[in-house]
């Protein structure tokens, strides 16, 4: 068996590879369940089908897909410019801190302007955190992969300090948590009875906005040239520095928006842990969605389903929540493997000619 390079990348395989990867991951998950002594069919049903059975499930799906999609769109724009923002988790956390701090500081008094300020502070929190990485990369050549990642660990510790220190709820019996946000600083629900807020609309709006940015604007074109052909980009006078700044500020801002939307939404206060790894799972969403906004919308829904199904498996099958992480990891590994089919044909037998 050998690989033969295709004359051009296969568009069909580009679409088929994620489907193959999902099927392979489902098969892998079934194997995992069997090894752990569970009924694979029942577990797969709990994981992929049961959460979609009722309105509550669908609403929870939208709730979990929202932060994943927001973070993934930012990451994907960066990857196209060869700018790897792996620290969306940290920008998400700083967004939550920024928005949360403003919300708590404004307190009970306020009006219509409170919520926009909270959201703005969230976006700026995420942007500011990403800006550190952008500055260190453009000024000192420090690689953004390591810097954004290290800053994620720092952000989580800062949140841990704030909810035990300056932002701790004075009437919270010394629990590590902040006060509950006032209704004025909380995102309105999309519909009564669910937990989905209007943040889902921000995520949905980011899909056409992202597609427009990459496909129809000069800055989007420059980003793709910087990523695909850095030499050509330099020759054409497209600055790598501005591409790095743009990508990191954009993805940091989106991750910050996702973070503030979580705390000023379903969570309702600052806690030491506010994300089940959305920032990292969003990397999988970006790749699974082929870095294209519409693809990422589907991928975010699938990843949200994995989170929901994982919780259901924990309740009904007593499987550790970590099983979700294994399935997510398998999904990305299988996808990267299946991607070989986009650029290569598999030939069985025979010798390479020439």
């Amino acid at each position, binding site marked *: 068996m050998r690989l033969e390079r295709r004359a051009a990348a296969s568009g069909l395989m580009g679409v088929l590879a994620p489907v193959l990867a999902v099927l392979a991951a489902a098969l892998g998950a079934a194997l995992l369940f069997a090894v752990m002594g569970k009924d694979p069919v029942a577990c797969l049903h709990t994981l992929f089908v049961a959460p979609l059975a009722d309105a509550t499930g669908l609403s929870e799906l939208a709730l979990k897909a929202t932060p994943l999609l927001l973070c993934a769109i930012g990451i994907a724009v960066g990857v196209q410019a060869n700018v790897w923002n792996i620290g969306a988790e940290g920008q998400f956390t700083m967004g939550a801190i920024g928005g949360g701090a403003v919300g708590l500081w404004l307190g009970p008094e306020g009006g219509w302007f409170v919520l926009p300020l909270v959201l703005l502070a969230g976006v700026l929190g995420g942007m500011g955190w990403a800006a550190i990485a952008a500055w260190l990369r453009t000024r000192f050549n420090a690689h953004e992969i390591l810097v954004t990642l290290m800053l994620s660990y720092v952000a989580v510790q800062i949140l841990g300090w704030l909810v035990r220190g300056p932002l701790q709820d004075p009437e919270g019996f010394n629990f590590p948590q902040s006060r509950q946000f006032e209704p004025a600083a909380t995102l309105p629900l999309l519909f009564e009875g669910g937990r989905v807020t209007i943040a889902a609309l921000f995520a949905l709006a980011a899909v056409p906005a992202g597609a427009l940015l990459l496909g129809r604007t000069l800055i989007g074109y420059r980003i793709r040239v910087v990523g695909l052909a850095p030499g050509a980009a330099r020759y054409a006078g497209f600055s790598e520095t501005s591409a790095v700044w743009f990508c990191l500020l954009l993805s940091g801002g989106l991750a910050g928006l996702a973070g503030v939307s979580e705390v000023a939404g379903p969570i309702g206060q600052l806690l030491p842990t506010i994300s089940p790894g959305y920032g990292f799972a969003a990397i999988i969403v970006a790749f699974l969605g082929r870095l294209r906004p519409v693809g990422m919308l589907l991928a975010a829904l699938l990843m949200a389903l994995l989170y929901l199904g994982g919780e259901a498996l924990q309740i009904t099958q007593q499987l550790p929540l970590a099983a979700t992480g294994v399935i997510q990891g398998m999904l990305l*590994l299988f996808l990267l493997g299946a991607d070989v089919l986009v650029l290569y044909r598999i030939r069985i037998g025979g010798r390479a000619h*020439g």
Partner: protein
Amino acid sequence: MGDGVMLIALLVATLRAGAPLILAGIGELVVERAGVLNLGVEGMMLVGAVVGFAATIGSGSPWIGLLAAAAGGAAMAGVFAVLTLGLRANQVASGLALTIFGVGFSALFGAPYQSHPIPGLATVIFPDLASASPLVQQVLLLDPLVWLALAAPFVVQRFLMRSRAGLVLRAVGESAEVAHAFGYKVIRIRLAATLFGGAMAGLGGASLSLAYTPMWTENMVAGRGWIALALVVFSTWKPHFVTLGALLFGFVTIAGFQANAWGIPVAPNLLATLPYLATILVLVLISRDRLRLKLNAPASLGKPFHPA
């Protein structure tokens, strides 16, 4: 305890905190010298930590645990090799995938062992440790993994610079095409280097779960895999500088633990950020000299090689 013993205790603690970073960092250095960039160190360390822990509990022998940890790390590296060397997948994305998978796998596999303390490697080897005098106790705390970590850079330096195999490995990392033209099996050499890096990362993880802590807790590697990657850059791909950097980090970590005892009133959460901030700092200091970085980095680092 006298001041002398205190100083030795600080030194020993620094060495023990630095050992996991040296082991993983030296492994990754060899991988990168062969031209492969594996960002999955964190995931490989986690798998090594949990597999080593489980094997130690299962077999009752920490030596079998260490073997299992090395095998676990190498198996993870094998997955990376299949993707990047076999299926020609992007190295950066594959390394990230390996870490994401390792975080999940270790959490799932380790769930039954969560927060279950075991006797540390030093205690297993010297059962009378607790009754020894403070000074002897400190010296005996330097378990075989610390010695291995201190020796590994010398062995690797000699291998890379003074052996034929090391020369070939460096040639593959500098120019895979030229090495291929000379008839060397580029893919096979890169595979061997990648597996070695995985085994070392596995041992690094096991040095946390079997000697340093010693217990398994979810996500216990806590970014050390990424710090090890930064150390390789900091070292400009020279083994002895990995040791230097790792000991610096060991010291920063220990200083963070000790700060409150020394009467420095800073919140524990903020002290815990020190190793990460120090990583960024050294990365900035070393990377600002673009030319030096470029001259020292393996020229083929991260570039795939596909023989026709």
